[in-house]
Structures are given as C-alpha cells and as structure tokens.
C-alpha cells in the first residue's frame, strides 16, 4: 500500500483548507479508492478523508430543486422515500450497486468522481440534467454533470475542488423514470450495460419529453440524444424498438472487454432502452390519472 499523509476534516471549511494544499486527493467511502491504491492505480501524497464531514450528507427538497449531499451513501439514497417519489430510477440504481457492505460506504459523490462508464448512479442523474456544486477555498462553481465527466476515470475536478452536492429539478406532469441494468450475476453485479430513462407524456398520451442515458457503451455514460429525438412526439408502442435500435447504434461505441462483447452490448442496449421506456411510460400513465 502506498504511503500518504492523512487529514480528516470535520467541517466544510477545514475541508477547503486541507484541499488547498498541493498533492491532495479526496477519500470518501473508499470502496473505489482503497483497492485502487493497493493495486497502484491511484496516488495521493496527502489523502483527505471527507467521510467525517456530516454537513455533506443530506437529501433535501429545496422546492424547485432536489439537492443531494455528495457524501450521501448509496444505501441512504436507496432508502430515501423522497427520492423514490422524485427519481425512482436513482433509487433502483442505488439499490443495485454492489452489496450491503459497499452500499453503506460508497457515496454519490464518490461514484461520480470515479467516473466509471459503468457507474450506476450516473445515468439516473443525467436524465434529470443534474448539476454539481463544486467548492474550493477559491470559490464555488456549478457544472452540469454531463460536462463534468470527461472520460473513463476523468473529470473536470480541479485541484483544491470537491463535489459538495448534486442537484436536479423534479419532473412534473405525467412523467416516469426507470433504471435497468444487465449484470453477469444477480448479486454484486457490475453493469455490462445499464440505462436510465425518463419520459413525459402530453395529454394526448404522446411523448413530449424523453431522456435516455446509457452506461458501459462508450468511454463515459452518455445521453442518447439521437434516440431521444427519434422518439419525440411518438406514441409509445412496441414497434418503436426498431427506431430505438437504429438510432442507438449511431451514438454508442461499445467495446469487447473481459465482461462482455461489443455485439452483445449493442444488442442489449436497445433492449433495455425499450424496456426502460415501457416502464417509465407505465409510471407516466399512472401519474397522469
């Protein structure tokens, strides 16, 4: 295991100060970072442990926005009645990650910062156009989640910065959201391909808004805007599957790796988008009544 010096701030002010030093990196739950450090894939000369900063663990309805503290654990997200109501895809995703032990430690902020293309919480946040509040001693800035993630394991996080919270606006009207994941086994399942879908229906029952995010089919989780465009104004029905598949192929670039093949991911992506859409539409119809 690498050597590092260790800070444990308990307030946000302390955290900002700690991170203003050069060579610092952030530790939250540790479920990604500790194994990576052991494997020599993550380096820090100073490790700043944020897990004690209680002020960053919250789930709040701030009226126009839902705000989630970056240190909210996956288990807390999974158990949140508020989130179940406002973004059920995020709850399904959080429930599906790893196992009890890792869900109790892994955080929403950590999952975002780790920026894996297979991350499960990122698609449900992307479909809600989530933004991040980044803070540092030098000041705050907001950035859309979609712009924050630059590549596999790469983000726009600057030196001295940390993710304070994630916000998104709830959907209104006849809307629904769903998350579907294909894993290689049922327990402790890493995504082979995953999707989050949100849909809004107009009063004629046609799709007036649709957001689709796919994971594990590109270097980052992506919004499938071509697929979204192809669905706008349409009646949600099974024949849409062909359109989804065709549009999807244009935007995704899955690879063959130890877990699965390019062809399977290509095929499965379209299947789960269609299923996600069905599920989201069912919810939307329910809300519309």
């Amino acid at each position, binding site marked *: *295991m*690498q*050597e*590092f*010096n*260790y800070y*444990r701030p308990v307030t946000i002010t302390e955290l900002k100060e700690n991170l203003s030093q050069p060579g610092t990196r952030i*530790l939250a739950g*540790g*479920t990604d970072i*500790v*194994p990576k*450090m*052991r494997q020599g894939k993550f380096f820090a000369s100073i*490790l700043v*442990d944020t*897990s*004690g900063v209680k002020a960053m663990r919250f789930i709040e309805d701030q009226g126009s926005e839902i705000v989630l503290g970056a240190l909210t654990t996956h*288990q807390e997200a999974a158990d949140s009645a508020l989130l179940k109501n406002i973004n059920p895809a995020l709850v399904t995703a959080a429930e599906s990650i*790893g*196992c*009890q*032990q*890792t869900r*109790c*430690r892994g955080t929403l902020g950590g999952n975002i910062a780790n920026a894996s293309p297979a991350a499960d919480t990122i698609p449900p946040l992307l479909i809600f156009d989530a933004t991040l509040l980044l803070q540092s001693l030098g000041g705050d800035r907001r950035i859309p989640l979609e712009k924050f993630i630059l590549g596999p394991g790469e983000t726009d996080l600057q030196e001295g910065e940390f993710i304070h919270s994630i916000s998104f606006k709830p959907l209104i009207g006849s809307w629904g959201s769903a998350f579907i994941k294909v894993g290689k086994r*049922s*327990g*402790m399942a890493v995504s082979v391909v995953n999707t989050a879908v949100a849909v809004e229906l107009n009063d004629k029952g046609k799709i007036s808004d649709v957001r689709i995010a796919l994971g594990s089919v590109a270097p980052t989780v992506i919004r499938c805007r071509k697929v979204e465009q192809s669905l706008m104004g349409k009646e949600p029905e099974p024949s849409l599957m062909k359109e989804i598949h065709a549009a999807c192929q244009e935007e995704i670039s899955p690879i063959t790796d130890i877990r699965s093949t390019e062809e399977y991911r290509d095929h499965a992506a379209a299947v789960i988008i269609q299923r996600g859409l069905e599920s989201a539409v069912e919810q939307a119809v329910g809300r519309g009544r």
Partner: protein
Amino acid sequence: MKEITVVFLLNGKKTSITSLPNRTLLDVLRTDLGCTGAKDACGGEGECGACTVILNGKPVNSCMIFIGQVEDHQITTIEGLMEKGEYHRLQKAFVDTGAVQCGFCTPGAILTAKALLDENPHPTDLEIREGLSGNLCRCTGYNKMIDAIHLAEQRGLDD
C-alpha cells in the same frame, strides 16, 4: 508518512490506536487488536465480505476502510458478539442448522446477519438473500445460513 492516533469503540470498549494511516481497519484489527475473526479472502477488493465488521450499525468491508476513518465510530467484530459468556442467537442458529462448514466466511456472514436483523427483525427470504449477497461462501450454498437467520429471528421472537 506521519502516524495518526485514532480513538474508537471496539466491542463496547474505548480503544486508541497509533498507526501509519495507510493501514486498513482489517489489518489493524488482525495484527494490533487480536481480532483475527475478520478474514482476507479476496485481496482487499471488497468482493467477498469475509472481512465484514459492523460500523455504527452497518455491515462494512473492513479491508476497504483506512484506519483513520473509524475515528469516533463504534465497531463490532465477531469477537464482540457473545454477551456475558452466552452465544448470540445467530451464533447458536448457525451451529444448530449446520450453516458452518469450513467457517472462513462465517464471522462475516454472522455480522452481516446481525446488522440485518437489528434493522429488519422479520426479513423475507429475498431480503435475507439480498442482505447476504456480499458474503461469498463456497462450502454451503447459503441455504443453511438462510435457515439460520430465520431460526434466529424466530428465537428472537421467543425471547
């Protein structure tokens, strides 16, 4: 690399450890604190649950927690489960149902089960399977562990 001092409750007892910060909770428990019940079966990747301890009521993989992170926390290890020389109902149930074979996964599984029952005293089969899914076992096929948890649940009702 500067040493740090960490103070926490271990099995109800206030414990202070001075250590290099790059050591995991698992390593400190096993090497410095005589708690060898927690095991390393997967190389510290959080894939097996054999290192499970209870941290503030939640089951966690101690192999993925740096020692500094438990400052002010409450930790229960398998060594702390017996009370006044009496076996915990889960320990008894695991033995009674034959859920213990090689035993390497047993401490982790029992602690996961304890955390589960403490939060959800009447879990369904599916909830138990979900709860145990982070504890790998190659010997038992999990059936008798699930029986044991139900048995412990029943006995908890009778208490």
